[in-house]
């Protein structure tokens, strides 16, 4: 079994760059509060670096770090007294358990999903694209957007539910695999 113990920090950095998007999205999918997603992902990569000699290179690095991230999220839930604000407690526990039971994703698929997302966003009508930008680029909440658009927060949330569904369908068509 080949190990990662001789890898340099620079090489490890390249692995992080390759897998960071997927790992961060995975942490978020476990119900971690948004403000802590990157923090948990960083902590997971740091643990991975410290435990690099136990990693079997025949396995996928991204999936290995996801396993670490899952434990970090669960530990936040159990140990951290401020855990209520780091993760969504019971919800995170259930989502983490569920993610453990799933088949591991092909590493290249995650990268393809990210690429497909870019393409699908580019295809959105200008008005919808602008709304998406407003929400994610400027961190506007549904209530703020509703005020600007003269509608209700729930109507905006519903619009985003439909929009995300559309994007997921578009991604699935392109990659042949659904997100999550």
């Amino acid at each position, binding site marked *: 079994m080949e190990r990662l113990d001789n890898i340099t*920090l620079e090489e490890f*950095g390249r692995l*992080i*760059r390759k897998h*960071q*998007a997927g790992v*961060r*999205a*995975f*942490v*978020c*999918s*476990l*119900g971690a*509060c*948004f*403000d802590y*997603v*990157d*923090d948990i*992902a*960083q902590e997971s*990569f*740091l643990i991975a670096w410290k435990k690099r000699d136990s990693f079997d290179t025949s396995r996928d690095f991204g999936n290995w770090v996801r396993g670490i991230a899952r434990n970090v999220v669960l530990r936040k839930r159990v*140990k*951290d*007294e*401020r855990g*209520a*604000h780091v993760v*969504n*407690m*019971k*919800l995170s*526990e*259930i*989502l983490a358990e*569920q*993610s453990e039971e799933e088949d591991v994703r092909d590493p290249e698929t995650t990268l393809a999903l*990210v690429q497909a*997302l870019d393409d699908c*966003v580019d295809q959105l009508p200008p008005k919808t694209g602008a709304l*998406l*930008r407003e929400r*994610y*680029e400027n*961190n506007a*909440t*549904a209530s*703020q957007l509703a005020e600007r658009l003269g509608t209700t927060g729930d109507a905006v*949330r*519903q619009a*985003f*539910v439909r929009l*995300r569904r559309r994007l*997921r369908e578009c*991604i699935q068509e392109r990659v042949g695999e*659904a*997100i*999550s």
Partner: protein
Amino acid sequence: MSGKEVNLLVARLVDGEISHTESRELAGLIEMNPEFGYEVRGELELSDLLSQKFHETRSANAFMAAMKGRFRADRSATRFVAAAVDMIEKSERPKRKRATKKTIWWLLPVAACLAVIVGSFRYNEEQAERLPERIVARIKALSSDVEITRKGEVVLATIGMDLLPGDRIKTKSTQRVTCSYPGEKTTVLLDGRTELEFQSAEKGRRLFIEKGKIDARVASGSAYAPFVVATPHAECEIKGTRFMLTVRSGRTRVEVSEGIVALKQLADGAVIQIGAGEFAEARKRGGTLMARASKDPPDRILPPVKLSEDGPEIFRDEFTSGMENWEPVIEDDSGRFRPLNESEAGLVEWDGQTLQRKAEPGVVVMHANLTKDKQLGIRLKRDIPPGSIIIEYEFKGQSGSFFDVKYGPGVEWTASNDYFPGKYSTSWNVERRELIRLKPKDGFERYDHRCWYYRGAEGKYEPETVSADSLRMKGERQIIITGRARKTRIGRVVIRKLAKPGAR
């Protein structure tokens, strides 16, 4: 629950606006239908990928930069720990005086040459931003009449004043001072009743805190690294982090908000790393040194400002425990802090332009917008007596009960339920089958728990003769809360901390 309601629940989760109750509701739905959990995770994953794509601070480059900082902080702390351990081991080895003397005399010129070469190399690298050698820091902001002792003489501090090695600042209870390190984003805020001396060191910057409290933000990758803070009981090495340090009655407490701080206890040489969200205390007499999770966000020290009509941003911070326990305060004529009154509410508002809660949960940005020279602050609410809790309840019969719990400062209660934080004020519905136990950590004999009230017909609270059926005492050791209630009733129980244990 209809499909539309479920969609909205998921959307609220994705938007980070879900409440504890809704989160539990969602967890229940996923437990019943695992396929739905798959959907929820997909929504969260997609939303995060969109955020990474659009938001500048979440780009791959920003993440990699933060990751580098994290590695650097970790390696630096590890090196400090290794060096400290090495130093302790060396000090424990038997000394061989003659051999040392022989070795050192011929090494001195070599070391001096090396120091000059290394020093000039470092100088070339850093001279662009570097201060003249003797200036340690600079005063950025301060309250009125702050005094500095310089070479035995007392001088009045002024904004922009350069601080030299050996300068000692001593603040009175209502005074605050902000010191900055020009050329970098490092700032040190001194709280009231603090004594701090700027010391020079061969390497890096060094502060000595005799007593009091500082709130420091040390820029990563500083030309002045390492940044060392010493106290009578401890020494900390900081590199790119945010922390709060308090020195009082034989102990030094370090609470870290970001990055890592290496803390050394001088009494026995024990060394520990404190990570974000943790704190540790070094004691004068030594003893076990361990990092523990912070239970309560520390009161933030706010920089002193001359409030003006321009309303510059004077404060920005995250409150991980939520905002409900905090209140803005202002300095009154006697120099004490009090909550803002109604006439000041128009000048400093929670959700207005001057003091606003940002869109992100738990982030506050405070702007100065007063014409008077007054100090603004933010602190834990004092409307509940220290150490006490008030539970307001509404028994709704068959549909469970609603509880609103408010904690006073410094409470140490434990709860058997995850959703009951045991520390921060909260509201929640207790289902009929649920049972929650509440216990004060320091024992019930310190509390008076006989103050039960119910809300009468006119809306006024009147003393309750018997404790309500779903909120009751058990053997004077704990409070039991259940969702089961035979009748509909609104009331409250006040659990007050006693001045002395057992005294009522």
